[in-house]
């Protein structure tokens, strides 16, 4: 069944058709979330939230628009929420660490370095830059499409992309020089 038909079917209350949409987009969405968050658990949470939000607000989706971009836009917001939440937890953790004299047994690692996780170099970028770079490199998006996901102007998206590419190039050169 075509994507638009599936969406129409979901709007008529067929939940199972949303599962098909999810099966279509889950891997891509998950990859994007992992690239932004650098952590599988958080990425899964963000994806779940994004799909749930998408289903609940499907009636508001303009079917003339691209569903994938709309979904990515929701996912991007959810990822930012996750990062904010993580920052709050990290601040609390640091406070606790300062108050207690005992050395901590573990600390939250934004990127534990497991397999299938993005490079640590990506953490040199801001979340917005990571998103832009991911959409550009992984999805082949243009600045106009990136702008649609980020809900900003195409020129702003282009500036973010430029910043991200420049930072990554410098980081790669530095890494290669140290090897």
């Amino acid at each position, binding site marked *: 069944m075509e994507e638009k038909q599936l969406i129409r079917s979901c709007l008529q209350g067929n939940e199972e058709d949303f599962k098909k949409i999810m099966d279509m987009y889950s891997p891509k969405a998950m990859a994007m979330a992992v690239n932004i968050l650098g952590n599988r658990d958080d990425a899964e949470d963000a994806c779940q939230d994004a799909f749930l939000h998408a289903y*609940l607000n499907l009636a508001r989706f303009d079917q003339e628009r691209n569903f994938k971009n709309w979904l990515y836009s929701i996912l991007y917001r959810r990822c930012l929420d996750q990062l904010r939440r993580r920052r709050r937890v990290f601040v609390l953790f640091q406070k606790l660490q300062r108050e207690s004299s005992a050395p901590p047994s573990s600390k939250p690692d934004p990127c534990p370095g497991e397999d299938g996780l993005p490079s640590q170099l990506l953490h040199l970028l801001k979340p917005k830059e990571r998103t832009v*770079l*991911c959409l550009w490199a992984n999805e082949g998006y243009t600045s106009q499409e990136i702008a649609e996901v980020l809900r900003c102007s195409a020129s702003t998206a282009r500036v973010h992309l*430029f910043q991200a590419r*420049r930072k990554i190039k410098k980081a790669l050169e530095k890494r290669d020089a140290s090897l």
Partner: protein
Amino acid sequence: MLRCRLINLFYTILPLKIWRYFLIRGHIERCPFCQAELASREAAKSLMTTENEVSLDASLWPQVKAGLVSARSDRARETRLSAQKRWRWAAGAAGLLIVGLASFWLLRGYRIQDMANGGKVPDRFRINYINVEDKPAHAYLYQPSESDLIIVWVQKSP
């Protein structure tokens, strides 16, 4: 190269998006030296997790479905609560309306009674005669303005 350095300097010292966009469009996108300073798509992709590398341990659908159920029950509760709230407001408004109407009718009743009396206050106090020690005495009545208090002053006749 000197121009590129100047552009780079301008780019760094003025962090305004519109200005930076102007520089990117005007020079950086066209200049091969500046382009060489940027990571290529392939280089960027090599740092990313791609959809093929992401293996979902389990489908996200069961969790999303559970979320849908709880979201629906939350919505139903919200609808119920908002209906209750609407009823409370309606009851409050009806109560106020009843009190208002009752006050209006009561005040209207008083006003009609006043009009029937010609707007005058009826006599409520009268002294026919006063005797002090079995002899008629003079009586004086005082009533302070805007008061119901009446003072009776009695004096023996000479």
